[in-house]
């Protein structure tokens, strides 16, 4: 599949990575404006996108990137400082390039022109009226006495109604010589206020022509009374300084001598040079990244799954006949090695995900008017690739929530004796078979009273219900819950955190919240390492077999018939002095018939709560390849999936968090009946 891959697709993949690099470099640059390596990285990324874009037929991308690159070259030459404003425009430009590549049909070229106009404006400000670049074509046209004019004009709003067509006027200008046009859309009102036949645009034009100035006046002769027009000649020398935009591959001879200061070649990295530098970069930072199409990974994962099943079958065969035991062991060893290797391929460091949030925090910080620092740790923590993708949205919600609700505005922070800039700390680490990803902030912390009040108001809990703080905090993940006094554009609509909970639980994970009033909140997402294969504990209830994720199993105990009878109706088990509620799976699954004489209890735990599951027999550990349930069964509670056993039978995988919740409910109900168990 990859051999026949569409070259355009390769370009898309490559540019996605390059744009990622570009974004990182830009964001870093905001922190360290003087870092030349960063500027070079950004520049190289642009340069490569431009070159490959032209090669793979993305002319629009190449053209825009070319302009962007030319503008950015100023930064490289130290003519402009990468201040936050410039970074913001550059980030917009990066987004635009991405959308040009990924969704060209939905991408409005006008946005690009606006971005370029913004860029130029910034540079123009930086250079106190220095000219914007004239084009390569201008340079290649050795017009003896051509002059470069800079025009800025806007028409009266009724110009369109009165029969003039600005596009035709622009065409006329283009007919005069080399013409660069940028439109400004700042005055375009929101759709509701827009008059459909009014003209709200403003144009910047740089025109290099051999005609006298009067040619410009002729173009506007009929509208000159109905417009604001500014025409100024650009100094010839300055025009050259602003015209370093030779096309990538072909060197263009300029008619006029180029001033020394700008004589340095604009694009020193010819294709070979670019390859070299990118190789060096790859050697330095991303030593051994491989690009594997995700579908191929998934396919391989399926194969491994099958192999695991086959191995289970063989094991069973060996147990019956005995002769194949050695082979079975060998296959078992191989299979588990293959599984581990395969898992390894699927594992990617979470840093790639964290990288995206820097941009998010940057934008949030700007939109909310709060200074926010994002610190990260544990970027190298590896997690299954599909999980990383699924984690992106929930983490965005959590971070947004922290930025919007948890962090106070700078004045409040200072008044509370905190630094003006809020901090969001993103940490990933392994803990056993789980990965913990925590988002902590140093904001105001959760207010249990306010959450309670809100939950009561929304009918999520009964008034005065006895809930621990931990339980109260979990309510913020309920649909429709929001304590924000004002709905902001970012959060506060109660949409988001419930999605987080659903997504995380869908990945067999859970969410913990820790908070200290006035000090901050830490939201921890606990996730299994992978979604594909788990170690399971196989149990039998009546005739059916079930798998319990081994990570959730704390211990297995026997329950005597006497115990079982005595605790009937109470469903509590005394485990070393602690009362643990238990569920009889036979009852739960409506299995008829008498239970076995020696029932076993599997104690499962999640977070701090434990529940016992009463089963007929504990069969043993089992490599459980998780198969999702069909749509028909997806809503059945108590099961999170299914697996295929060695003999081909299907075993359902128990949904431990659900069962624990069920056990807790029963416990509460029973506690309500009998105030205190003896």
């Amino acid at each position, binding site marked *: 599949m990859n051999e026949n891959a569409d070259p355009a697709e390769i370009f898309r993949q490559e540019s996605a990575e390059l744009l990622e690099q570009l974004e990182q470099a830009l964001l870093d640059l905001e922190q360290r404006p003087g870092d030349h390596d960063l500027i070079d990285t950004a520049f190289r990324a642009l340069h490569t996108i431009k070159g490959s874009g032209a090669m793979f037929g993305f002319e629009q991308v190449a053209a825009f990137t070319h302009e962007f690159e030319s503008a950015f070259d100023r930064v490289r030459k130290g003519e402009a400082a990468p201040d936050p404003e410039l970074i913001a425009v550059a980030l917009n430009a990066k987004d635009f390039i991405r959308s040009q590549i990924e969704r060209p049909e939905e991408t409005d070229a006008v946005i690009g022109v606006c971005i370029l106009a913004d860029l130029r404006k910034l540079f123009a400000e930086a250079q106190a009226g220095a000219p914007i670049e004239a084009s390569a074509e201008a340079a290649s046209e050795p017009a003896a006495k051509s002059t470069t004019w800079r025009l800025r004009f806007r028409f009266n709003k009724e110009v369109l*109604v009165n029969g003039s067509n600005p596009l035709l006027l622009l065409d006329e200008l283009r007919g005069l010589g080399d013409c660069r046009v940028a439109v400004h859309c700042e005055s375009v009102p929101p759709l509701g206020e827009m008059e459909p036949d009014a003209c709200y645009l403003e144009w910047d034009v740089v025109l290099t022509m051999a005609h006298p100035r009067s040619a410009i006046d002729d173009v506007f002769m009929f509208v000159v009374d109905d417009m604001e027009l500014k025409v100024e000649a650009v100094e010839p020398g300055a025009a050259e300084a602003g015209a370093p935009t030779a096309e990538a591959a072909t060197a263009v001879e300029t008619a006029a001598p180029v001033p020394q200061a700008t004589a340095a070649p604009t694009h020193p990295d010819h294709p070979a040079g670019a390859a070299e530098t990118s190789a060096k970069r790859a050697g330095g930072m991303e030593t051994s990244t491989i690009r594997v199409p995700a579908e191929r990974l998934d396919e391989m994962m399926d194969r491994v799954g099958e192999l695991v099943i086959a191995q289970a079958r063989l094991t069973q065969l060996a147990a019956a006949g005995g002769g194949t035991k050695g082979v079975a062991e060998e296959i078992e060893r191989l299979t588990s090695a293959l599984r581990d290797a395969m898992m390894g391929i699927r594992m990617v460091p979470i840093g790639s995900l964290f990288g995206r949030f820097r941009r998010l925090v940057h934008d949030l910080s700007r939109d909310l008017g709060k200074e926010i620092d994002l610190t990260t740790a544990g970027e190298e923590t590896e997690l299954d690739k599909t999980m990383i993708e699924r984690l992106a949205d929930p983490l965005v919600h959590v971070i947004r929530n922290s930025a919007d609700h948890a962090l106070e505005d700078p004045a409040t922070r200072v008044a509370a004796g905190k630094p003006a800039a809020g901090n969001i700390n993103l940490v990933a680490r392994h803990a056993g078979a789980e990965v913990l990803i925590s988002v902590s902030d140093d904001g105001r912390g959760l207010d249990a009273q306010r959450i309670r009040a809100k939950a009561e108001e929304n009918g999520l809990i009964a008034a005065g219900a006895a809930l621990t703080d931990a339980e109260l905090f979990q309510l913020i993940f309920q649909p429709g819950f929001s304590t924000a006094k004002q709905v902001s554009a970012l959060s506060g609509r109660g949409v988001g955190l419930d999605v987080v909970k659903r997504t995380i639980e869908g990945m067999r994970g859970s969410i913990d919240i820790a908070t200290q009033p006035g000090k901050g909140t830490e939201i921890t997402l606990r996730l299994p390492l992978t979604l594909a294969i788990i170690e399971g504990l196989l149990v039998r209830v009546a005739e059916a077999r079930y798998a319990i994720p081994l990570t959730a199993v704390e211990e297995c105990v026997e329950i005597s018939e006497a115990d079982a009878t005595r605790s009937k109706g109470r469903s509590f088990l005394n485990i070393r002095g602690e009362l643990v509620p238990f569920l009889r799976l036979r009852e739960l699954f409506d299995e008829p018939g008498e239970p076995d004489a020696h029932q076993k209890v599997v104690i499962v735990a999640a977070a701090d709560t434990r529940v016992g599951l009463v089963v007929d027999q504990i069969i043993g550990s089992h490599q459980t390849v998780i198969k999702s349930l069909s749509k028909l069964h997806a809503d059945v509670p108590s099961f999170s999936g299914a697996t295929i056993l060695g003999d081909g039978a299907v075993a359902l995988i128990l949904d431990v968090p659900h069962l624990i919740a069920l056990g807790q409910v029963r416990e509460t109900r029973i506690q309500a009946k009998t105030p205190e168990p003896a």
Partner: protein
Amino acid sequence: MKTILAVDDSASVRHMVKITLCAAGYQVIEAGDGRDGLTQAKANAVAMIVTDLNMPNMNGLEFIREVRKLPPYRGVPIVFLTTESDDGMKQQAKAAGATGWITKPFRQEQLLAAAKKFLG
């Protein structure tokens, strides 16, 4: 083919407009005064109007104002014919909604240039 409406009480001027623009590939319909012009404008889909200002029945200024009120004629270029000396008239015509003007006497090229300028 784009249709241009020529409004003038002088048949010779209309004729000149007609042969010039027809030769350039436009279709030309004629009207002898503003009132006639308005009727023609309503009956045809006209891409551009060339009108005299000084006409009987309905003069050019009034004609321009009335045409502009017709929704399909918002945005249609209207060029009026005027004399060098009459700058005040120019302002009035523009205020009435005219797009541009041609100073009489005019050469064929000037008319063609105007058509090209406004119709592209």
